[in-house]
């Protein structure tokens, strides 16, 4: 019977229910095995002990306060009991251990989804890289070399390789887009703080839909490529740069300027994405059915690139379109 008692003491938080039934059976027999856990095991305080074990961790203070429970009288003793209540101690210990366990579980699961070192790779940028990448997003037509240097099967950090994707620009562009949208709505007298939340959530939802659609289509079309999910998020996030600039241009001058700037950014983003993704998706052509493979990947590329202008127009025109009224 040694194993069940130890098991009970360690798995306290998960096994509360069966323990209460087990304790009902032969409490006297449990006595000798529990000596190492309890300082003072009285036959009188059997009930107290049973109840306290439900909390799992045995309280070391318990032994000292046994007599006070047995002979409680007088208001000051009651107050003393209440303050030094081992139940409270045990409850606090239980609560803190539960919190610690919860935090461990969250950390473990988060590590599985997004390991922090992988995400850190996307943020290892510096000012020169960001400047050049923004220039590339504005005007990609003169850039000639789109390949990415690899460092032992891992892309080189964005700091040193301008063609590598990063997550700093998409994150900042997304937040800027939300704020600029709020500002534009403010100049149209349509602004309430809830609008910020609405715009943010709708843009995020479209981003997630894009991510799911592209991952699914990559899987379905059986295109083996080295693109990871975070890369896809990065590429889909680059359109927020164009949307932000076109919104700013539109709010400072007329609507036609907004449409012109939007068109320019659509074209340059399509070009940028096609050039970048062609390097990443199409390298394996030596497999079976190579002509079919390249056609499929070309279609995929076209779909990805053309979906971006559609979403750019959809999300930003809902901000601008009310100016007619």
């Amino acid at each position, binding site marked *: 019977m040694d194993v069940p008692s130890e098991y009970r003491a360690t798995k306290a938080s998960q096994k509360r229910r069966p323990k209460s039934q087990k304790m009902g059976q032969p409490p006297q027999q449990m006595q000798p095995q529990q000596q190492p856990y309890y300082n003072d095991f009285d036959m009188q305080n059997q009930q107290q002990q049973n109840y306290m074990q439900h909390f799992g961790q045995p309280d070391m203070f318990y032994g000292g306060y046994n007599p006070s429970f047995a002979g409680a009288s007088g208001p000051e003793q009651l107050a003393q009991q209440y303050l030094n209540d081992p139940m409270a101690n045990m409850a606090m210990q239980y609560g803190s251990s539960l919190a610690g366990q919860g935090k461990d579980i969250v950390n473990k699961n988060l590590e599985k989804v997004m390991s922090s070192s992988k*995400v850190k790779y996307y943020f290892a*940028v*510096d000012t020169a890289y*960001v400047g050049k990448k923004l220039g590339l997003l504005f005007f990609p037509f003169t850039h000639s070399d789109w390949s990415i240097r690899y460092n032992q099967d891992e892309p080189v950090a964005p700091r040193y390789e301008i063609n590598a994707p990063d997550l700093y620009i998409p994150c900042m562009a997304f937040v800027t887009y939300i704020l600029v949208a709020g500002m534009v709505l403010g100049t149209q007298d349509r602004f309430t703080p809830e609008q910020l939340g609405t715009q943010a959530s709708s843009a995020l939802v479209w981003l997630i839909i894009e991510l799911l659609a592209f991952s699914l289509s990559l899987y379905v079309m059986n295109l083996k490529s080295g693109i990871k999910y975070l890369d896809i998020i990065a590429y889909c996030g680059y359109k927020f740069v164009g949307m932000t600039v076109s919104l700013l241009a539109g709010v400072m001058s007329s609507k036609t300027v907004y449409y012109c700037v939007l068109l320019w950014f659509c074209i340059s983003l399509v070009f940028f994405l096609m050039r970048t993704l062609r390097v990443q998706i199409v390298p394996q052509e030596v497999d079976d059915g190579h002509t079919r493979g390249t056609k499929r990947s070309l279609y995929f590329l076209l779909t990805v690139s053309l979906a971006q202008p559609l979403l750019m127009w959809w999300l930003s025109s809902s901000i601008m379109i009310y100016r007619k009224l």
Partner: protein
Amino acid sequence: MAVLNPLKSAEHTIMQDTDLAGPLVFCLAFGGSLLLSGKLHFGYIYGIGLVGCLAMYCLLNLMSLNGVSAGIIVSVLGYCLLPMVFLSFSAVLLSLKGVVGLVLVIVTVMWCSVSASKLFVSALAMDSQQLLVAYPCALVYGVFALLTVF
């Protein structure tokens, strides 16, 4: 005083002891001056401050080589709120929706974010990333400016 002079470089020991009293005073002063111009926005200030601090915490943990603690972030962002308090006091006297107001707002936001990024960069030893850190700070202070103007 490092906050009020954004052009001078700060030494890296300046944020060794983080205190939250100054930032709290500045937040209350900001809320009080907004109250003077008739806007009861205390809840928004706390909410935006919290969200901004959380966002900066995540970003700086991802961007710097060694991590940051939340106390440093809160105290830097809170101390650099001081120019924003000046802006909101001036909003009581003159309306900020004209061109003069726009210029004033832009100058204040840039002042806040440059000094905040200077403190962050010197405290965390991140090279050649000051502008990158200044941009999110500018966004956070821009939201505060939005509260002040509209």
